[in-house]
């Protein structure tokens, strides 16, 4: 009897799930169709009509900002869809099918591919005046061939979050260079075999990219009319050697980041440092609330004779190909990312590190963080952003390159190959993919 009850509960649960999914997709369909309908009506009656802008994004708190904009601009109706799961991948298919949103938030790593595939529109004429309010690096990241393809929305300067209690307990100074980092790793693990300096996640590309950037490497580059690929460049090999040593000596754990297993080790105090971007502290506070007060942030350890820091990548809001009214969409994107009204909310609610000058000047950025023992952690990230070399450039097949690198890294942590071999393999796969698309690659 119990089993029958359970059984029907299970069935009902499943139906509810299906129903919810169906409702969500129906909502999406109606949202899309109503969008184009209203825009079409707007074309017929330009005076007094409402323009609709469909916007997909993932930054926390965007709902409130969209509502604020709609209230202030009665002639424009922005509808917002929060991106979750693999919505990022859905965008491409939706755009190609002519059913995409008008405006979408995109990782700056993915933007060149969108430009090459013609999935985004140039918006230079609408946002040219905004350039003065953005950091040079972020504006460069949305400019291709002299055309602007998006409005930058945050960057990811790196820092090293560390457990001050664990380091103090074993009398270890906060490492400032990668050599000191290795020494600290050895000392920690020798003092307590359960203690590791870091977790080397074979699935987290941002942590790799930030150190490659710090070492002044770049996965991609342009040489005349050809792409260059540098996945196994000299800088990357230096980073590879560093982590190979830490891995070989058993000084790091190799859990996938974001898994229950990972957070359980973070909460248990097995991991002494986490090097990641300025948006990571929000995630740390949420998933390791019990460790509040034990963490501090320091700059990434550096290479000898260098003050370089790294960046794991930023984002931009871009106007997609099928957008009915690119002007209205670009105008909203410009307001959302650059206006004085939105900076505080993007920083405190959204956890963004601004790529705008007015955002960098915002007092919200310099709030003390209780979780980090009252430290003003963004002071570290601001300095990091200033010390990030402008050597990294984006390339045309980020998705393929990222998948190739991560698949190869998995074999490294399984002990089947070295980081250097992994980088060679991923490099070859990425070059082969570019050539199969007819793109020119310079060796």
């Amino acid at each position: 009897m119990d089993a029958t009850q359970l059984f029907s509960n299970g069935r009902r649960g499943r139906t509810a799930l299906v129903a919810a999914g169906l409702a969500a997709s129906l909502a999406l369909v109606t949202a899309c169709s109503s969008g184009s309908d209203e825009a079409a009506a707007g074309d017929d009656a330009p005076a007094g009509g409402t323009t609709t802008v469909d916007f997909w994004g993932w930054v926390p708190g965007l709902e409130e900002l969209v509502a604020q904009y709609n209230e202030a601009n009665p002639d424009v109706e922005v509808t917002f869809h929060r991106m979750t799961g693999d919505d990022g991948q859905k965008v491409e298919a939706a755009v190609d099918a002519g059913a995409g949103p008008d405006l979408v938030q995109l990782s700056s790593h993915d933007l060149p591919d969108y430009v090459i595939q013609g999935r985004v529109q140039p918006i230079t004429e609408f946002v040219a005046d905004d350039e003065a309010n953005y950091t040079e690096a972020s504006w460069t990241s949305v400019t291709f061939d002299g055309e602007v393809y998006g409005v930058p929305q945050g960057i990811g300067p790196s820092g090293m979050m560390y457990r001050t209690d664990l380091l103090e307990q074993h009398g270890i100074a906060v490492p400032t260079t990668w050599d000191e980092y290795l020494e600290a790793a050895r000392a920690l693990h020798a003092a307590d075999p359960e203690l590791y300096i870091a977790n080397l996640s074979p699935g987290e590309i941002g942590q790799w990219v930030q150190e490659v950037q710090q070492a002044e490497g770049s996965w991609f580059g342009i040489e005349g009319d050809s792409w260059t690929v540098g996945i196994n460049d000299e800088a990357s090999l230096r980073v590879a050697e560093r982590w190979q040593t830490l891995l070989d000596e058993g000084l790091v754990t190799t859990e996938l980041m974001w898994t229950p297993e990972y957070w359980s080790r973070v909460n248990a105090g097995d991991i002494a440092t986490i090097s990641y971007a300025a948006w990571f502290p929000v995630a740390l506070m949420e998933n390791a609330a019990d460790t509040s007060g034990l963490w501090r942030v320091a700059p990434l350890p550096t290479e000898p004779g260098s003050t370089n820091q790294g960046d794991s990548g930023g984002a931009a809001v871009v106007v997609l190909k099928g957008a009915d009214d690119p002007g209205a969409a670009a105008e909203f994107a410009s307001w959302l990312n650059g206006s004085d009204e939105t900076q505080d909310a993007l920083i405190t609610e959204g956890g963004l590190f601004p790529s705008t000058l007015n955002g960098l000047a915002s007092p919200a950025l310099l709030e003390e963080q209780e979780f980090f023992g009252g430290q003003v952690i963004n002071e570290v990230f601001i300095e990091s952003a200033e010390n990030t070399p402008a050597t990294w450039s984006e390339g045309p097949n980020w998705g393929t390159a990222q998948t190739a690198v991560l698949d190869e890294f998995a074999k490294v942590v399984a002990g089947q190959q070295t980081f250097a071999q992994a980088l060679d393999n991923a490099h070859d796969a990425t070059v082969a993919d570019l050539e199969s698309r007819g793109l020119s690659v310079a060796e």
Partner: protein
Amino acid sequence: MVALAPAVVPRRRRALGGGRLAPYLFVAPFVVVFLLFMVAPIVIAVSNAMYSSRSSGLGFGGAETVFVGLQNYATALRDGDFLFGFARVALYGLVQVPVMMLIAAGLALLFDSALVRARRFFQFAVFLPYAVPGVIAALLWGFFYQPSVSPLVQALQGLGVDADLLAPGTVLWSVANVSVWSNAGINMIILFSALQSLPRDTFEAARLDGAGELRMALSLKLPMIAPAVLLTTLSTVIGTLQLFNEPQVLQSITPHIASDWTPNMAIYAVSTLGGDTRLGSAMAVLLGLVTLVVSLVLVRVTNSSSREGL
């Protein structure tokens, strides 16, 4: 077998619309859906696979679609990891299919015999996992596989067994376990209903001749439900070749499932993560062909062996 069909009392035919049109009207919904969701996608995939998107130089001049014939197939067949995915699911199937069928057939025979008490309860218990969507099942088991949150691994460690269920060597069987857990129930139900429709007088005769439950199960019942066994085996084999949900979900908790771990995952990686839907189409056509060939061989082999048996 024909005699088993329940007697149907023919009803008087009612005139419906235009007499001759009626049969077409009845099959129309099926034909339309079949054409729209089966035939059309296959035709589109096959034709898509013959084209490729080409840019030149840096690519900012835009891309054009060019006819490349069978080149995408050649690319797919040169991809060692894609081909290795087939070997991986073959190994997986060699173990998982027999295990699944043994469990399903064993349980079905047990429930059909007079040996089990509280039959309905246990049947529901076995069938229950099938009501859990595949992705949810993989998520649930994912928690059982992660040492720090898994009572299972912790219990094993308590017994002195250092179990890592997500290691490169074990993860294939952890995936197989999820799939057996999810699908043994439905296969059991199919086999059980086939058993229930068998004529009881044959068994009475066998019992009078002194056959025990085991002898009846192996010599009478199993041969008599051979078509149902073939059906469930076939669907299990096809499910194996199309393995996707479970490893795709478990990929988020272990690095030892690569993006091209199974053929279906490789197709997803190429088309969705890599953005090359045309190469993905060629790979999908190849997977479809392999599935077709394997199914035909399986049917042929079973048919000829059952004919020999008779």
